[in-house]
């Protein structure tokens, strides 16, 4: 499709949606009067053999946030729910719309969800810009361009039996979002024909990769609902891949300090995909110190080589510093732990080891500026803290030796008294 044709179709669709929304607002969005009265929609559809027609009212009746708020079938589908006759019930003159799809569905949902006055009555804290955001998304743009395969409201939220977003069974609950997106995005047949900007086919392995990530583990195994899933990086109603230049901002939403350090680095100007260059996007694995350095496992070696390469020197220095601090931490922790187990009071030293461990975390953060002059001072502070711990450990070890020697001496003295008493008792009893 040529670009001008695409934009003409997009414009026409946008105007159509806007018109639907404006028209609809006039009739919006109160539950039909007497909603508790006769509902021939449900009674008729329940008798239909075709599941496609009988299942929706059943799902709506079981659990649906709209039904709970007093909405009925005709609020989305139009028609006359009091009419016993199918033709009358489905009469377009009585507003019957059928099953809204595509732009009609967006408009049907937006009739209430884009109306602040309506939403204030039912969910006053809920945003009302979903339809506007949707129009900016890849889904919205494709739909406007006439692509009916893209996701619309019901694709993610469901059409009947809609649950609140914070309901753990909702398809858009954080732990379910990835699977919901994967319904389309992991389907090779559904995604066929969609291309990346570089004209390569859009991959369908995002869910598989995401499931290997530290984010997925935090969300599903760690029950951390703040851990990112698809919509946290791509947006939800305005879903689109973040542009290459925006990746740092996207990751920096949570990893703010790392993003800030990275933005000062030389790599910020070089890495096209920002954080993704080292950490990947969907399969973000737990980072390790092995990623830094110049050996075969390191990421730096992918671009830097040669002893006189500045990158090699910087990576070697930073990795060396970090490893030195780690070794010191292991040594001091073991000393403190052994002395604590031996009954020495080492809580101040345990605290100091914790402080040094914080320095290690900070050094790993500073490393994202890719400049050893940022890392070395932090490591030196950590090592100085550990030196004080080791000194206290030596004192405590000497004290422990003294105690045990003292015990041996006192036990010897007690034993002598016990033996003397035993002799005395025997002597007395022989008399």
């Amino acid at each position, binding site marked *: 499709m040529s670009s001008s044709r695409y934009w003409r179709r997009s414009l026409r669709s946008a105007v159509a949606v806007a018109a639907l929304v404006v028209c609809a607002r006039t009739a919006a969005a109160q539950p039909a009067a007497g909603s508790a009265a006769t509902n021939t929609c449900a009674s008729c559809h329940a008798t239909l053999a075709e599941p496609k027609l009988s299942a929706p009212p059943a799902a709506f009746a079981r659990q649906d946030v709209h039904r709970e708020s007093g909405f009925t079938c005709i609020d989305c589908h139009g028609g006359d729910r009091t009419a016993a006759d199918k033709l009358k019930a489905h009469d377009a003159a009585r507003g019957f719309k059928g099953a809204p799809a595509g732009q009609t569905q967006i408009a049907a949902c937006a009739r209430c969800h884009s109306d602040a006055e309506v939403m204030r009555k039912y969910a006053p804290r809920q945003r009302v810009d979903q339809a506007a955001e949707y129009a900016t998304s890849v889904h919205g743009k494709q739909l406007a361009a006439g692509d009916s395969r893209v996701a619309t409201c019901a694709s993610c939220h469901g059409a009947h039996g809609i649950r609140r977003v914070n309901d753990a069974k909702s398809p858009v609950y954080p732990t379910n979002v990835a699977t919901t997106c994967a319904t389309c995005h992991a389907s090779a047949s559904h995604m066929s024909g969609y291309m990346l900007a570089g004209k390569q086919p859009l991959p369908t392995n995002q869910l598989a990769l995401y499931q290997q990530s530290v984010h997925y583990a935090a969300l599903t195994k760690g029950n951390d609902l703040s851990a990112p899933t698809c919509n946290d990086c791509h947006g939800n109603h305005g879903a689109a891949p973040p542009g290459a230049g925006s990746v740092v901002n996207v990751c920096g939403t949570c990893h703010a300090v790392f993003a800030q350090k990275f933005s000062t680095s030389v790599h910020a100007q070089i890495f096209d995909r920002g954080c993704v260059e080292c950490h990947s996007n969907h399969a973000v694995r737990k980072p390790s110190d092995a990623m830094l350095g110049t050996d075969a496992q390191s990421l730096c070696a992918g671009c830097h080589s040669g002893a006189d390469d500045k990158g090699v020197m910087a990576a070697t220095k930073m990795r060396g510093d970090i490893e030195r601090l780690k070794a010191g931490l292991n040594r001091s922790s073991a000393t403190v732990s052994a002395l*604590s187990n*031996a*009954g*020495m*009071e080492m*809580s101040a030293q345990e605290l100091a080891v914790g402080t040094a461990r914080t320095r290690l975390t900070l050094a790993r953060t500073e490393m994202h500026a890719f400049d050893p002059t940022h890392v070395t001072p932090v490591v030196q502070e950590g090592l100085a803290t550990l030196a004080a711990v080791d000194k206290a450990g030596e004192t405590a070890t000497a004290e422990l030796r003294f*105690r*045990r020697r*003292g*015990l041996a001496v*006192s*036990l010897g003295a*007690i*034993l002598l*008294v*016990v033996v003397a*008493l*035993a002799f*005395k*008792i025997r002597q*007395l*009893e022989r008399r």
Partner: protein
Amino acid sequence: MVQQVVDWLDERLDLSGLKHFIAEKGVPVHAQEIWYYLGGLTLFLFAVQVFTGILLLLYYRPSSTEAYESVQFIVTRVPFGWLIRNVHSWSANLLIGAAFAHFFSVFLLKSYRKPREMTWISGMLLLLLMLGFGFSGYLLPWNELSFFATKVGTGIAGSVPLVGGFLIRLLRGGDDVTGATLSRFFGLHVAILPAMSTALVALHLLLVQRQGMSVPLRVEKHLKPGERVRQMPFFPNYILRDVLVWYVALAALAALAAFSPWGLGRKADPFAAVPPGIRPEWYFLAMFHTLKLIPSHVLGFEGERLGVIAFGLVAVFLVFVPFVDRRSRDGRNSPVFTAIAIAGVLYLVVFTILAQIAS
């Protein structure tokens, strides 16, 4: 030198009665005489507690903001403070162990029979006081484990019928375990319980000295009419043996203090989540585990409440055992009470082990 001091005192106080008592006092010699030493051992450990407790008092500060730090100061900065604190902690445990062993030995030997009913009752009350010492002392370092264990322990007191709510607030000094609870437990530990136990120990010792050691029924039965059990002079023979046992206990205390020191743990944080492994001291474990095993409701009654009532009834029953066990009083074998004592030992051992495994 010692003789000179005794003579000096004799001139002024006339110690002839005391001298006569000491010279004449004997201790029965028989196959079960070894159990006599448990009383002396308990007394020795109680003395250790008093001595080390007084030393700890010089530095300990009973407030929620300073208690933990003061104990930390004692074990790190005060010369030999670590030794005093460790000996106090270990001795407390050995004392309760020795008191229980003394209690069961007396129970099994039926030494409570006439005319020693008052000795038994004072001993039973002392055992309960020792448990009170353990419960109140556990909180004093104000660490995480003791804080939450006290919360659970005082919570159980709430199950006492009719007065449960009052009892909780009395123990805690409020609705929850706070600094007010620490102040109360400190007062209980260093003033109220010592005063009561000093009086009871004095009474217990007085009765033991006045009535002498009980001879087991089994030994008495083998005596011919008019025959007396062979006696060992109390002074110096028995006293020296007692001192020997005390020295062995002292050696054990020193070894435990040096090789298995009592940890201090983390400072209590009332706002922190309850850490795993919260449990009372070992001597409450059997009861604690029993309460955990009782279903939440039994025949419409609250399970924990029934458990607390049952423990209370058992304690009352034990106090009045000399009056209930009529066969022993009449000098006859009392197999039912022997079975009760053995069942008590088995219950405590098995349930303590089960509680250890469960935690």
